[in-house]
């Protein structure tokens, strides 16, 4: 968070608006606190670290409250001939920060229970280094919270890295698990390549405009030297790559299924929601704020990307075999690729629309719905994984008989993802995305999406139907010994379910972002 290209010494001494930067800062500070505290906390009291992290994330989420309604900027250049800020807390920022921090909070709740189970399972031998786990989770959340507030390309890339680097470690953290390390390596290598490409793009853009501030870039791009035109175009296109990678857009998606399966379940949930939020908020910032004059470059690119992403994701999800190990997580992984496609549709539509802010608002609305519902689905998957560690789709057969609440809630989440009543919020979120596409004249994309929605309905419904089917060959009266009540996990499931149901009753709460200005 440095003021880039500071013109004079005087501007190095800045007044910092601490309230504005509180959300990512609190997360980062708590991360350090947990890392240090890990050294002093006894082996059997490691749970304290988890609860500290949860409290920290809750505090960070609450620190968003005083920022509501105002637009605050900090790390600004005042002495320059123009005003440009590196950090802005506007409506867009707050919404994404809320999504990230609340999502991380739910992830933390899931992690508490899975860490505890892992501890009990191995008779005290810790499969996860807990202090490091919490440190990495919080750091990544801090980076993800910083990203939507960044208003210059350097901060944006730094935030992207802060959000991603701990995530690699989180994926590979499971000690003695080869699949986990494989996944981490795959994730790491592909992500580093993507970020490098983005940096190259940023440098091209910098070369042609001479500034890194997004608003300055936007004005700079309108009168680029004719000789640099191709360079700029390449820069614009390459900058998108790193963010597209984080959203898991095709063709940058191949890491997803193996990484999700290899990672601990809460981390997979984290990547599927917060990882994507990082990607698409970065995309929105660079496309809508920095490169509006190059809409003819990124618009078609993103539209094609969206169409490809949803088709590949949904078709792959459709082909999952129910009896294969981890097929439930695999299905969620592929479906999240498909959902990423829907998230990209309004951003692509922003290129063609008269009011790009309104279009990207649809992405925000959809993302909020998706975050609640997908985290909920992962939470139920985590619940099921406690008794059925293989997490196959066929393990969900007859879930209604053994855990009616979990089955009903999972059914609701899946129908939300599918966009079918009673998942009303899912339906209307899809409607806003559709309308963004139709409004921008991207009729073909709307039709592709419609086909995809039907494909997705097929596998979501099949899973839902499985929940209520009678169990095969097993005595229903069998007591489940390993199944103990787990507070944090139940809280996570209940919280996401309550959010989902409340949003279904009052969709306006999230859909209003699709009709108002964001920046």
């Amino acid at each position, binding site marked *: 968070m440095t003021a880039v290209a500071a013109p004079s010494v005087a501007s190095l001494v800045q007044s910092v608006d601490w309230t504005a930067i509180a959300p990512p800062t609190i997360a980062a500070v708590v991360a350090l606190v947990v890392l240090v505290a890990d050294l002093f906390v006894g082996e059997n009291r490691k749970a304290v670290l988890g609860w500290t992290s949860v409290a920290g994330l809750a505090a960070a989420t609450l620190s968003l409250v005083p920022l509501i309604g105002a637009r605050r900027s900090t790390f600004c250049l005042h002495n320059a001939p123009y005003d440009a800020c590196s950090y802005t807390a506007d409506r867009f920022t707050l919404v994404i920060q809320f999504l990230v921090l609340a999502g991380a909070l739910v992830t933390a709740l899931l992690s508490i229970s899975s860490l505890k189970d892992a501890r009990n399972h191995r008779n005290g031998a810790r499969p996860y280094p807990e202090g490091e786990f919490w440190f990495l989770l919080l750091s990544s959340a801090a980076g993800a919270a910083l990203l939507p507030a960044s208003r210059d390309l350097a901060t944006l890339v730094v935030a992207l890295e802060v959000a991603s680097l701990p995530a690699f470690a989180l994926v590979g953290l499971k000690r003695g698990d080869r699949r986990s390390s494989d996944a981490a390596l795959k994730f790491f290598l592909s992500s580093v390549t993507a970020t490098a490409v983005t940096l190259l793009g940023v440098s091209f853009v910098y070369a042609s405009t001479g500034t890194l501030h997004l608003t300055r870039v936007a004005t700079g791009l309108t009168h680029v030297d004719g000789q640099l035109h191709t360079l700029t175009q390449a820069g614009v296109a390459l900058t998108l790559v790193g963010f597209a990678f984080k959203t898991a857009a095709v063709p940058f998606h191949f890491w997803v299924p193996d990484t999700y399966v290899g990672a601990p379940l809460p981390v997979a949930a984290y990547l599927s929601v917060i990882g994507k939020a990082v990607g698409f908020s970065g995309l929105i910032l660079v496309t809508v704020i920095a490169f509006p004059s190059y809409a003819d470059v990124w618009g078609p690119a993103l539209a094609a990307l969206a169409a490809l992403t949803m088709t590949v994701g949904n078709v792959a999800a459709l082909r999952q075999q129910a009896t294969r190990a981890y097929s439930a997580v695999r299905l969620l992984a592929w479906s999240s690729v498909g959902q990423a496609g829907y998230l990209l549709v309004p951003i692509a539509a922003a290129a063609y629309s008269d009011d790009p802010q309104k279009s990207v608002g649809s992405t925000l609305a959809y993302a909020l719905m998706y975050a609640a519902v997908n985290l909920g689905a992962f939470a139920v998957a985590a619940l099921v994984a406690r008794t059925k560690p293989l997490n196959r789709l066929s393990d969900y057969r007859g879930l209604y008989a053994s855990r009616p609440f979990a089955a009903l809630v999972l059914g609701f989440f899946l129908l939300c993802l599918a966009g079918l*009543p*009673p998942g*009303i919020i899912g339906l209307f979120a899809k*409607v806003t995305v559709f309308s963004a596409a*139709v409004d921008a004249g991207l009729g073909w994309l709307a039709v592709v999406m419609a086909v995809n929605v039907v494909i997705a309905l097929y596998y979501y419904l099949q899973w839902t139907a499985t929940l209520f089917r009678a169990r095969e060959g097993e005595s229903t009266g069998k007591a489940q010994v390993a199944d103990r009540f787990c507070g944090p996990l139940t809280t996570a499931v209940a919280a996401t379910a309550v959010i989902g149901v409340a949003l279904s009753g009052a969709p306006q709460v999230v859909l*209003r972002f699709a009709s108002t200005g964001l920046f």
Partner: protein
Amino acid sequence: MIDISESVMQLLLALIVVGPLIGAVAALLPAPPGLKGKSPDQAVLRHGVTVTGAVLVAAIVLALGFDHGHPSRMQATTDISWIPALGVRIHLGIDGISLPLLVLTALLTFLCALYSYFKMPKGPSPKAFVALILVLESGTLATFAVLDLLLFFLAFEMVLIPMYFLIARWGGEQRARAAWKFILFTLLGSVVMLLGLLLIGLKSGTFDMMALATDNGRGLSTSVQVIAVLAIGIGLAVKAPMWPLHSWLPDAHTAAPTVGSVLLAGVLLKMGTYGFVRILLPIAPDGMRTFAPYLAAFAVVGIIYGSLACLNLAKQGAKGDLKRLIAYSSVGHMGFVLLGIATMSPTGVNGALFANIAHGLITGLLFFLVGALKDRTGTSDLDTLSEQSGMALYGKAPRLGGLLAFGAVASLGLPGLAGFWGEMLALFGAFKPAGDLSRPAFLVFMSIAAVGTLLTAAYMLIVVRRVCMGPSTPEAPRLADVRGYEFAAWTPLVALTVLAGLWPAALLGLTNPAVQKLLAGGMK
């Protein structure tokens, strides 16, 4: 008929739509003390009867309070903003077109709940069954009561999940496949429909059906209307169902439990045809005019195809399933409804709406009867039932046989019963379609459809001959005749069939002014 203040009417309509939903949630909760009944199962089934009964009473009161002097006016209207971001409003209201369908839905669901109370279909717990029936009712009633395009879509989709589970969990053989086919066909159609609805909403700037109908398509260019009618029409045609998109229907009906079949044929199919009348006719008249001849052609093919399929199933040795046969007859009957709509003339549309109601009553009754027959004999296979020379139901269970014969002749359109008027008016409409449609084409359609009525008569009489008649042998086991609860569930349907047949003006008086206004533009 009776004077009820507008605010009470509003409350009644809101209650009718939301009541079943609350009832569905309540059905899943444990019964409160004092209402536990003999067993949890009995208590929840009774709960279903109570809720659907209350909704029926509310619907009847609403019908009584309805201003019959001005059936073209939207009454009991509620208009609350729900999602300003999308411009979605909770806009409810009824007029002469929706009121009969609303009452029919409430009636059929109540009769189904009553029937299930005594004769629960085989399957898992009745708790979920009752909850699903209530959600289904709420979705259907909402479809007929809402006046907002997106809300209409929501209500339209709401019935899918309950119906899917009703077929997949409480159905007969091949139920899983049939349920899948049902839901996939309908979903494919409805996603396309959503795009059409969005196109209309975004191009005209409002999703409000009243405003759009008043506009009468003036705010939409012809090309937009054509695309929208094509997209929405496909979604509605799948539901209706229109040939060649009907193939989910016979499977779904054959596999569904009796109650599911009754509701599917009685009310769910009507949602499709209602959409044509309520949305496409007034909102996109130009687009509708473009497609009307095609719609009529498909409808007529459906009439002939349905009848021929039935004739084939009714043949000796064809292993025809009675439920499947009635399902195919539905394709034929709905063909008449679609033909009436395609004429775009007041006569034709009135006929379509009348045939809608008549089909709901008669086919509902027929599915009840066949279900009862299947319960008693264990099969609905026509060959097994009638063996070589006929089943002689008249001898074995005279009342059941009589009712079946009654249902059959009502279905073939005997004058004096409900089935007659709708189809006759639809044919009349085709004789003189709206001014700018090709009359010769419609005359051809009319004459082909008339052949269809003959074919319908043929297969229905064959069914009666094979099932009801036959040599009665004294040693043949007698079947249980109509039981008390069956009598209770079927009498209203019989009575209304006769009433609608003898006094069609009661229904046409409601629909006609509304249809006139609808076609002329404006629904105020």
